């Protein structure tokens, strides 16, 4: 293809996106579009499966059968999200194995929030409430993103995430209605998860890269800071409602802007965790790599068996013929 032809294709491509048409896997797309989507969708998929770990940590210790069942179902949903996000990613010409390798080699990222430990039962409520809450704010706009398989996956993900978010908040309500110990547990969890949750929206706009291109491709519709503000404005009243205090002395309602002002985020902590030195980065990666490596013989066996079955079937067919 000549450079002109490519330019032409690109122009048509951008026009389609501008018209809100969906790009499908078989369609022509610029290599950068493909790469960016592989990176973002896989990062999203990895986040789902790494995200199973902190919550999975409380399955055996859930305080009631009802909560145990709900938590199991939630973690299972995350595995499901991982599954269809990996599938969406595979339509771009990369295998799940390759994506895993990138994760295990530390080349691919996942959401930093999952590098914090779950220390009490209230953390499970808080993750649902804050972490899923933040995720939804990040993800809802993606239901209309330009790449079809990703957009469709996100519709389903967002629906389930909302359910998880409500379920998490309900755990918190219950704790806050409970004994002094339970309420303290809830407050303590909020104290520990609040700031990491704000960091989920990424660096401030001033420091953020890729934004312009992502806006054009509808991978992003609002800036990090706008989304963060939206999250804060939405969450503060929820905390108030159940009598929890946001651990930010600078937080206050600003009549003029119609938003909450808030304190300075500890960006040192943010970068420490992003760079792999958070409280659980090593454990999370070890858990994933161990699961993968310990499962190798199982996957090999399944493959070998499937091949044998195929052979048996073929023999049978040949005989029949």
């Amino acid at each position, binding site marked *: 293809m000549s450079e002109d032809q490519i330019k032409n294709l690109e122009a048509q491509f951008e026009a389609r996106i501008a018209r809100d048409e969906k790009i499908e896997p078989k369609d022509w797309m610029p290599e950068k579009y493909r790469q960016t989507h592989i990176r973002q969708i896989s990062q999203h998929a990895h986040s789902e*499966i790494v995200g*199973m*770990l902190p919550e*999975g940590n409380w*399955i*055996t*210790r*859930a*305080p*009631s*059968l*009802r*909560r*145990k*069942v709900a938590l*199991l*179902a939630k*973690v*299972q949903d995350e*595995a*499901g999200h*991982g*599954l269809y996000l*990996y599938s969406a990613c595979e339509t771009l010409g990369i295998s799940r194995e390759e994506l895993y390798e990138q994760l295990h080699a530390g080349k691919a990222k996942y959401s930093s929030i999952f590098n914090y430990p779950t220390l009490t*039962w209230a953390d499970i409520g808080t993750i649902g409430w804050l972490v899923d809450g933040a995720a939804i704010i990040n993800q809802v706009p993606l239901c209309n993103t330009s790449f079809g398989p990703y957009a469709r996956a996100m519709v389903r993900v967002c629906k389930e995430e909302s359910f998880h978010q409500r379920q998490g908040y309900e*755990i918190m309500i*219950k*704790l806050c209605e*409970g*004994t002094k*110990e*339970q309420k303290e547990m809830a407050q303590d969890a909020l104290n520990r998860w609040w700031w990491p949750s704000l960091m989920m929206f990424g660096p401030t706009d001033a420091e953020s890269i890729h934004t312009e291109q992502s806006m054009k491709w509808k991978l992003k519709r609002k800036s990090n800071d706008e989304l963060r503000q939206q999250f804060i404005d939405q969450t503060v009243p929820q905390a108030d409602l159940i009598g929890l205090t946001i651990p930010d002395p600078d937080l206050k309602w600003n009549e003029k802007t119609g938003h909450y002002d808030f304190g300075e985020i500890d960006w040192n902590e943010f970068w420490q965790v992003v760079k792999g030195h958070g409280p659980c980065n090593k454990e999370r990666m070890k*858990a994933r790599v*161990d*699961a993968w490596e*310990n*499962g*190798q*013989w*199982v*996957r*090999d*066996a*399944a*493959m*070998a*068996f499937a091949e*044998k079955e195929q052979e048996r079937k073929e023999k049978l067919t040949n005989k029949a013929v």
Partner: protein
Amino acid sequence: MKNETLYKYILSIADNSLILGQRLGELCGHGPSLETDIACTNIALDLLGQVRSYYQYAAKLAGDGRTEDDIAMLRNEREYLNVLLLEQPNTDFAYIMARQFLFDVYHVLFLQELQKSHDVTLSAIANKAIKEASYHQRFSSDWVKRLGDGTEESHKKMQTAINDLWVYTDEFFHLTEIDKIMVEKSIGVDVLKFKDQYYNRVNKILEQVTLIIPESNYFLKGGKEGIHTEHMGYLLTELQYMQRTYPKMSW
């Protein structure tokens, strides 16, 4: 308690599903593939769903204000009545699938009979649970076959798992005093009725993939009388942690 025998009988059924569900819950996020993770969680969810129905019924019978959670999580080790097989640890995926398979075949046969119970609640629970158990049986049989007839390594691992867990299978067919009374009253299941069928089904699958059927005259039991293996205590430290640490709270 007026219906103490029935109450204990219910626990002996429910505890099996609880303890196996707990073991499967440990795995969540650590399986060999996303698909197996999802499937194992599904099984755990089914089992714990059944568990809740059983314990809710038991709580009603107890009538002393105890809830399903009190019954599930606030008994001492000696009061849990599950068979020993189900508390065995998640040694590797072969053990996990062998344990599941050896239970599922029993579970389906058991529920088939329990459906006929004169106790309508038990019969209704069985009626719902059997569909789930049949699915579990299909899943675990498939994996026994896959691993048994997969690679040399997987065959060896599956054989080891079957050998090690075999000693616990006979306990299914050990009738406790409670079992006998319940059978007498046409509430409980006479497990001896389907003992041959159980081993036939199990053996058929094993033979199909050239796994050797262990020959042993020695079996282990005790769980049904509340005498467990050393693994049980540790399982309970986790299962009970919250209920023990924060007594009488609602979650």
